[in-house]
């Protein structure tokens, strides 16, 4: 019990209003981590309620992709949840419907409920961050004090950050790598990207009005003109596959490039073909938008391209789930040791299933 209550203090969850769970891979142990938080929350006698939703789908008994059994989410009475109709049908806690959100998913409309009994729930929330914002707003109307936890699949189409949550927990597992040093290396690199530095207030001031006035622009370019900063908003259907449309707009005096969407190796490689893609600041919404390999990050460094984000993500904790994709349990100690050696500024804990 003590260790569990300690988890809250370790990650400083007591004083948070919102938290995102981010997994480094599929089955990284986010749900296990969530179950640990729920248990710790209950054990420590918190008076505030938890409110749960997920980006996409979670808590189902089987992984839809692999068919393997997955941990389920067991919540105490009083917890608020925002989940799609179909997922609620498969939940067994007694749920009181508080509100229909008008946010639609492939599994039906997202419904805001309060659990009147303990029980299992399946979470299937919206995919887009704007919709998560709607849900967050509705949840707050019903319970302004709650800790709102977004179980966020780290995917190219959705995001856990972007100002939606104050803090995040990163879940890593043996699926990413079973060799301790490699896992630690990868986790540290992922953390670097997630915690990319915040843009300066000056650039933020220049960018924000443009981002708001061009809601559909995928890219916004700032260049130092003769007398003032000039800008260009580039409307594209997506970032992927349109790198050349962006790079052709780059000039020698381009100083800031803001990109809205997932930043992938493929995109960066397209941009790197343009010699003017150099000596500039590449700004993205938040660290969850960066899907880069170390090699690509290195190429950016050589071009003197720095990364910055509009919304900084405060990663409070790294959770290790020492299982591999085949379900084999790894010895957690060497993994923990390697992770702690590489990641020194954030606590790393083992929250594998055996610890439950």
């Amino acid at each position, binding site marked *: 019990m003590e260790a569990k209550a300690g988890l809250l203090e370790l990650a400083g969850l007591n004083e948070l209003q919102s938290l995102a769970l981010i997994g480094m891979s599929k089955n990284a142990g986010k749900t296990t981590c969530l179950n640990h938080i729920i248990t710790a929350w*209950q054990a420590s006698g918190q008076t505030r309620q938890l409110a749960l939703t997920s980006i996409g789908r979670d808590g189902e008994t089987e992984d839809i992709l692999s068919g393997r059994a997955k941990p389920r989410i067991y919540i*105490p*009475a009083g917890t608020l949840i925002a989940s799609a*109709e179909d997922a609620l*049908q498969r939940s*067994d806690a*007694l*749920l*009181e*419907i*508080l509100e*229909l959100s008008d946010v639609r998913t492939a599994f039906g*409309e997202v*419904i805001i409920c*309060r659990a*009147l*009994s*303990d*029980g299992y729930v399946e979470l299937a929330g919206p995919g887009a961050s704007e919709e998560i914002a709607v849900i967050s707003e509705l949840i707050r109307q019903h319970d302004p004090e709650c800790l709102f936890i977004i179980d966020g699949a780290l995917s190219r189409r959705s995001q856990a950050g972007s100002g939606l949550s104050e803090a995040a927990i990163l879940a890593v597992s043996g699926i990413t790598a079973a060799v301790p040093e490699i896992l630690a290396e990868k986790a540290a690199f992922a953390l670097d990207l997630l915690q990319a530095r915040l843009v300066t207030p000056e650039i933020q001031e220049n960018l924000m009005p443009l981002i708001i006035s061009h809601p559909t622009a995928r890219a916004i370019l700032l260049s130092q003109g003769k007398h003032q900063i000039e800008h260009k908003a580039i409307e594209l259907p997506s970032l992927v596959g349109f790198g050349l449309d962006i790079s052709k707009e780059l000039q020698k005096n381009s100083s800031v490039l803001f990109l809205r969407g997932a930043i992938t190796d493929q995109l960066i490689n397209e941009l790197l073909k343009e010699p003017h893609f150099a000596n500039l600041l590449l700004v993205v919404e938040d660290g969850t938008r960066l899907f880069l390999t170390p090699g690509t990050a290195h190429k950016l460094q050589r071009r003197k391209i720095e990364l910055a984000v509009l919304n900084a993500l405060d990663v409070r904790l790294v959770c290790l789930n020492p299982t591999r994709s085949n379900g084999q349990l790894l010895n957690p100690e060497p993994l923990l040791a390697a992770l702690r050696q590489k990641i020194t500024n954030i606590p790393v804990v083992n929250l594998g299933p055996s610890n439950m």
Partner: protein
Amino acid sequence: MHSSVMITSDLLQQVGLPAVLEACHCRTPQGSRLKNAVRFYNDQSREELEKELAAISRLTVLITEKHPQIVEALTQLARLRELRGTFSRLEKGGLLDDTEFFELKGALIIFSRLTKLRDILISASVNFEDTSAATALLDPGGRSNPAFHIYSEYSPSLAEIRSRKKEVEWQISQNKGSQRRTLLTKRALVIAEEDQEEERIRWELGAKLADWLPQMQHNADACGLLDFRLAKADLAVRWNGARPKLVEQGLPAVLVDTRHPEVAANLEKHGLQFTPISIEIQQGTTVLTGANMGGKSVALKTIFLALLMTQLGYFPNCQSLQTPLFEFFAFESSQEGDINRGLSSFGLEAVSIRDHYRRNKIQRGLIVMDEPCRGTNPAEAAAIVNAMCKTYGRSESSFFIATHYPVSSQPGIRFYQVKGIRPEVLHQLPPYQERSASDQQEVSEPKTGITTLVKVDQREDLTRVRRIQNLMDYRLEKIDGMHAVPSGAIKIAELLGVDEALLREMLAAWQEE
């Protein structure tokens, strides 16, 4: 669109009806459905139209005086959801899920709150039926909150199962490992019992609610009607609409200071004002003439839209309006041609002329034509236009036509012209000055492609056209007969820098005529 309105969808767009519908904001799916059904009122439904207009008129008073019930009504309406699916399932005796029960409970709460807004309901001529018994079915504990679940109060058996479940859940929270797993299995068995009892209750509850279906459906429709009338009243207030007066057949339509909402809004964006139009349209023919750029097309559309809005139950954008009710509306303009369809513009015009005439033989219509036969040989075109004016002049329909062809004065034909630009004002404009070649080069040249073929920078010309337009007096004036078609076109050509040699030829040709 209703078959009582003969118009192509492109033209309807230009006339501005879709913009009217878009500006009329309904808050409920039921209200939007009424709006999108676009009901056309004619002489047979005159009484209903009077009732509709009277309701809107009374609501505009409440909106203008910011009656507190307005905000409450709009708030409640905004919460109402589409209920057709749930109603249909209830009607067919299907099993409702908790979301649907919740939806119904929410709707019933909205009905009861709206029922209390007496001032609005009386003004809007909308009535609600008492559905409090249905509300009670969905709130067995009398909690009076909008949340819903299958309450333990529905059956003693359910209450008993849940109390057992709660006990197991408490034990689960106190145990770990294999004991916990055993308890979880025990819980699963209790849950199976609970599920079964809940489902029985859902069937029973659905059957009881079905008894109240007619009243609930009536109230949902009432919400739609209230919503639509409030939306129309709100639009009337925003657009300074006037309640139209419906007069008997044979009396003229009289429009005073009518504005075209969309055109006016566009002008205002450029800091310009729309000149309100006044006109009297009698049974028979009304001919509108006037200089080029005089806004004849806009005048036709403004008047057509105002009269059409009236017969769709909206307040037109004007100072005042009286009109008899037409059995059909027709609008024809070959202005844009049908180049895309590759069809001859006169061919299509001839089809419209035929259809309008046939319809007119059996019904009274408002038939509007914008410069028909403009691409036709002038002698024949003038003959066609004169024939139509003369024929419709003897009919019970109102034929309203803008044309440049001379129409001879006859009984049943009245003439209006756009005041236009007084010649002395036109002569005060500074003559056109060609820009120097160096000035022209300053324009950033397009780099590549087809853009090199076309003239890109029209700013100067557009400014000049706008300056001429600003001098135009768009008001309509009644005249005795058709004067010589007012000149002005050649002067405008001159002011826009048409070369001297060409201008000389134009003037010579004009004088010869």
